[in-house]
Each structure stands twice: as structure tokens, then as C-alpha cells.
């Protein structure tokens, strides 16, 4: 499998992280580790394969995996995402 490296960037909000370690244990590329403060931190951000496991399984909503085009113009994309929502 070819890895599409460096297309994503993993962000962690330390204030919301409780350090449960789910993301660290299940990340397929070992991008994350628990730091000395007991909270998750990114060590190998370039290895991220954008599987989304950490994002979907973070019980505290503390992880975001942003794709690079999204990073450039994040606000624009957020607006488009809302427009794409089905109309009632």
C-alpha cells in the first residue's frame, strides 16, 4: 500500500485530553505518544495515513486530523461543509 504521507496534520487540544491512551494504542503508524504530562502528543506527524481512528475514537473530542488543502483555507471549507448538509 502506498502511503500518502504529509497530506495531513494531527492536532491535539491538551486542555480537553484526559490521557486515556486509546489513540496511542490503536494508531496504525504510531504517530502519537503519551507525554510526561500524561497527555497525548504528536511525535511522528509525517507518518499519519489519515485513517481517522483517533478522531472518531477520542471520547473527549481532543484530536483533529486536518488535511493539507483544508489547512490552507479551513474557514472556507467549514462553510462549504455546512452548505452540503441535506436541506429539510
Amino acid at each position: 500500500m502506498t502511503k500518502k504521507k504529509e497530506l495531513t496534520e494531527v492536532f491535539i487540544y491538551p486542555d480537553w485530553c484526559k490521557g486515556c491512551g486509546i489513540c496511542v494504542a490503536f494508531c496504525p503508524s504510531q504517530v502519537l505518544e503519551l507525554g510526561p504530562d500524561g497527555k497525548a502528543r504528536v511525535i511522528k506527524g509525517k507518518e499519519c495515513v489519515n485513517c481517522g481512528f483517533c478522531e472518531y475514537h477520542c471520547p473527549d473530542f481532543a484530536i483533529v486530523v486536518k488535511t493539507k488543502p483544508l489547512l490552507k483555507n479551513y474557514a472556507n471549507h467549514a462553510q462549504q461543509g455546512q452548505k452540503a448538509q441535506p436541506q429539510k
Partner: protein
Amino acid sequence: MAEVTQLIHHYLRHNKKFPHVLCPGCGHGIVLGSLVRSIHQLGLTKDEVVLVAGIGCSGRIAVYTDFNTVHTTHGRALTFATGIKMANPGLKVIVIMGDGDALSIGGNHFIHAARRNIGVTALILNNNIYGMTGGQSSSTTPQDSVSMTTPFGQMEKSFDIVELAKAAGAHYVARSTVLHVKLLDRIIVTALERPGFNLVEALTPCHTQFGRKNKFKTVVDMYKWYKKNALPLDALAKLPEAQRNARVPIGIFVQEEAHSLEDRYVMLRSRLQEGAS
């Protein structure tokens, strides 16, 4: 994926204190995210959704979300939901209950809501224990496992929520674990689309009260247990019968069409009105 998972912030009450009160690694947070994504996927507005929650850790979910929410008494969430649905059938009523809430104190309401086929979606967060009150054994605590009130092992057999709902006549019964979050998203979306009583059981780990006493060193071990033991129904059917007992089947168990109680009420009313004229 960020645009999907960050949706949660449109639906949270940001005047509440975050991060939420649940323990590190508790699966209830994952269920909260899954529920919000499902509601967003269906395009429902905040005013169309009512979350009714009972007492327990799972009751906190209703507190954090910005829908119409009711935080009700212990075990009686389904009765409040029945009233809301009959008074205003246009609302999407979602009932969030824990296992102790739904099956122990509210067991009677649960089987009768399933029998009546009232149009609510019951989301049962099964963590095998009374987590909030200090780890007493509940009716879903597995036999021989240790809890605060059963220090030498639970003597009683436990309830299987799926089998109970099937026997009580529910027309949609599904189960997932918080590790299989895509499946959980899918079954919640299907449940919300359907009329009648829909049961979704989400298995969530409680490490603080259940895991620590039952040889799970960290909460991650409980997730690994789910990964090893939870199997989709079709994969389970391929296993030899001797190995099936230890596994937890996940997926959709029952999916049938039937008129819901509020539909039958409308039909009855129109029939009587025709008879009178």
C-alpha cells in the same frame, strides 16, 4: 475527516464545563460523537430532536448537547418519551439510558415500550455496571465477574439486551461496541429513519468501576477485548459452534416493518370519525 468530527462543536452547549465529567477512556463520549454525526447526517434541526435521558453516567450526554433535552428520573426515561411522542408525533425522540436505568429499575417500561412499538429510538449504553453510584452489580454484569457488591463473583445470570428486546417484540434491534464506531453511526442513522420502537445497544467500557476489578489493567485493554471478541453476525456464523459462546455478536439482529403506536392512533381516530359522520 476533520469537517465530520468537528461538527460536534455545533451541537454542544459551550456554556457547560469541558472536558466533560466522564472518566478517561469512557466510551460514552464516543457514543455522544456518533449520535451527533448521525443526527447531522439526517439533516435534522436542533428543534426537531428531543433527547430524553435517565439517571446515570449516560444521562450526562443529554446535558452537554444543544437539542431539546429532558433529564428524567431513574428508569422512567421511556415513559417521559412516550408522553412526548404521543403529544407531538413530529418530533424525533431519542432516549438515552444506561443498562441499570433501562433494564433494572426501568425494565418494565422497556419491555412495554417494545411491545407497544412507540416511535422512539432507545439508545442503551451498556457498561455492565452501575458506574455513577459506585460500581454496584447491575442486571447486565456478566456471571462470575467481580463488582463492589459481588466481591467473590456475580452469582446471577445476566440479561442479554438484544434477546430481551427481540422477545418483547421490538422491530429493530441492533448492537455495536464503541470500538466499531462506523457500525454504530450506521445503525443509529437507520434507527432514526425508521418508525416505531428502535433499540440500539452500544457496549461501552467502564474501566473505573468494572475493568479494574476484572483484570483489565488499563482502559485500552477493554477496547482490545472488544476488538478480539466482538464479531459481526456473518463472521460469527462462519465460526465453529464451540467458539461462538465466548464472542459478542454485533450488527443488526431484527429489522421488520410495522405500524408504530402513534400511527395506529391516527388511524383509529380517523376510523372512528368516519363511523360517526
